[in-house]
């Protein structure tokens, strides 16, 4: 009996090869699309949650050195090194402050003396990279995006390393003439390998950069410059050096290291107060700017990002629903058409002794076969393009739901169709 049912299902499929093939393609593509969307939706959702977890209770402020011209000149022309020591102490105290997390994140350009792709140059986003390429003393120099960062930058911005290693304690110690370890954003992966060296000039200091790792893709840092989240993918990440020796480089580097951010739970006033106390404690009247982005933009940047991510996740959900509804409706309508075409065959089967239940089983079997084959193809494609278990499980459940809905629709349609009515015309 099962064999007969299978044979009948096969015959129905053979009678409608074009429709069945199109349905299979439709189901497969919809499932692949859904699997993809679901994976992305999950990623967005996760990211939103991560951000909430990471920054939910924290306020983030941007910091920048705010020495006036006089102070700056005095500081850079102080050959005794006293002011440099004071600044180094201030910076060190800020880095090690326990009531808030201060980190250096200074977007200072670096001049690369090796050929650099346009996408890494300043001005690329504005379509103007010409100013970023110069020839000086016969050497081409490429002004490239670079971030100078301290240890806490990674934790405060949830930046993860994809390959290689992160910065270690000794990487933050600058020794002139030695290779400087750098991390590269994910976009660099196709151009450089771990261990590669790059000739560069940073704050008028020649240095050789050595790649020690690559950052993960989709990593963002809170940029005071752009007043937004900025992707790390096109940045060279330099460690915020500690330099014992006094030099013009060490002086301006230390100043630069005051640019960054503060993650705080104690509020802007108290944070500012602690910073000023640290500065005044060193006997100087300098200042650093501490900006609360909430007072700058109409919406806090973190909240905005989190909201955006949640919105994207929501949009993905809507897409999944639309794709599913479309696939289900298309499947149901085509099944109705197949059932209509096979009405006479069902009638003959009834004459020969089949029950209504048996006929329903055949039509459900057809739906099952189409969905199963579509599901198998979609699963294989999703697996091949590297989709995770979550999307695979999701599409299996989706197929189950579509199967139930389609079978129920077919059941009522066939009931209405009066498949047993094969004798005589309409009375």
């Amino acid at each position, binding site marked *: 009996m099962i064999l007969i049912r299978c044979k009948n299902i096969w015959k129905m499929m053979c009678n409608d090869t074009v429709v069945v093939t199109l349905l299979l393609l439709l189901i497969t593509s919809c499932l692949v699309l859904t699997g993809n969307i679901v994976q992305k939706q999950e990623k967005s959702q996760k990211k939103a949650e991560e951000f909430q977890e990471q920054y939910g209770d924290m306020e983030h402020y941007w910091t920048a050195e705010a020495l006036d011209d006089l102070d700056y000149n005095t500081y850079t022309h102080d050959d005794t090194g006293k002011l440099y020591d004071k600044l180094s102490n201030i910076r060190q105290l800020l880095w090690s402050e326990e009531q808030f997390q201060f980190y250096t994140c200074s977007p200072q350009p670096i001049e690369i003396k090796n050929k650099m792709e346009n996408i890494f140059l300043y001005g690329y986003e504005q379509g103007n990279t010409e100013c970023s390429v110069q020839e000086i003393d016969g050497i081409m120099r490429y002004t490239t995006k670079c971030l100078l960062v301290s240890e806490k930058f990674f934790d405060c911005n949830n930046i993860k390393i994809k390959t290689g290693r992160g910065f270690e304690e000794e990487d933050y110690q600058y020794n002139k003439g030695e290779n400087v370890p750098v991390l590269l954003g994910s976009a660099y992966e196709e151009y450089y390998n771990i261990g590669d060296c790059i000739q560069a000039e940073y704050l008028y200091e020649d240095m050789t950069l050595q790649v020690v790792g690559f950052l993960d893709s989709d990593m963002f840092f809170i940029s005071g410059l752009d007043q937004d989240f900025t992707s790390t993918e096109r940045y060279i990440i330099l460690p915020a050096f500690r330099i014992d020796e006094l030099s013009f480089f060490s002086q301006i580097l230390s100043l630069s290291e005051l640019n960054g951010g503060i993650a705080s739970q104690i509020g802007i006033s108290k944070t500012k107060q602690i910073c000023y106390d640290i500065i005044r404690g060193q006997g100087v009247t300098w200042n650093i700017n501490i900006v609360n982005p909430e007072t700058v933009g109409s919406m806090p940047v973190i909240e905005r990002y989190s909201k955006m991510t949640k919105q994207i996740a929501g949009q993905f959900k809507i897409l999944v629903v639309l794709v599913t509804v479309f696939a289900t409706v298309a499947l149901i309508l085509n099944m109705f058409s197949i059932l209509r075409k096979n009405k006479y065959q069902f009638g003959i089967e*009834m004459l020969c002794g089949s029950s*209504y239940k048996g006929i329903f089983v055949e039509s459900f079997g057809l739906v099952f076969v189409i969905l199963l084959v579509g599901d198998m193809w979609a699963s294989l494609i999703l697996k091949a393009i590297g989709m995770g278990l979550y999307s695979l499980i999701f599409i299996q459940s989706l197929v189950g739901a579509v199967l139930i809905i389609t079978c129920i629709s077919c059941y009522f349609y066939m009931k209405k169709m009066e498949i047993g009515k094969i*004798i005589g015309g309409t009375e």
Partner: protein
Amino acid sequence: MLLKIDNINVSYGKKDNQIVALKDVSLQVEKGEFLVLMGKSGCGKSTLLNVLGTLKNPTAGEYYFNGNDVINMSDREKAKFRNKNIGFIVQHFALMNERTVYENIALPLHYMRMGKREIKERIDELLENMEMADRKNAYPNELSGGQCQRVAIARALATRPEVILADEPTGALDEETGNKIMQLLQRINQSGTTVIMVTHDSDFAKLGDRCITMKDGRIV
């Protein structure tokens, strides 16, 4: 008595727009009888055949076959009952075009869960009787109308049913082929199978043991 129906009513549509197809139809058919049903189109003949063949549930009434209550059978029981006791012959043959003569005749036997070997023996015998042995691998669209009807009769007889329900079996055939089919039905009846036939042809109606005329859903 083979079958008995009492006050069978069948109506279609909703209450305010109801069409009555059968109205208080009562009928008794003896074993081995050749009953002819006549009447104009739309008088309820086919509906009555549908009810007798358990393809249509009556709105009201009783139906007994060999003393067994048919109306209250489940869908599965009705299917089994149909398969075992009733053979159908319809005007347009009701053959599956994508299946061979052999496969078409085998269909009710598969539902009967008969073994492959038995099916083959049964079909060979039937095809021999129908003088169709050489066409068992042919498809219906390769056969003439008369041949198609003989295949349909072979299929109706395959499970050796007690009753054959024939709805205009000669309606789609020319006169000569129609006559042959009628002779075949008579032979089947003479071998002991009850035949209930719907026809418009009064000459063929004379071949039955009894003729019932229907009008507006009633037996007159």
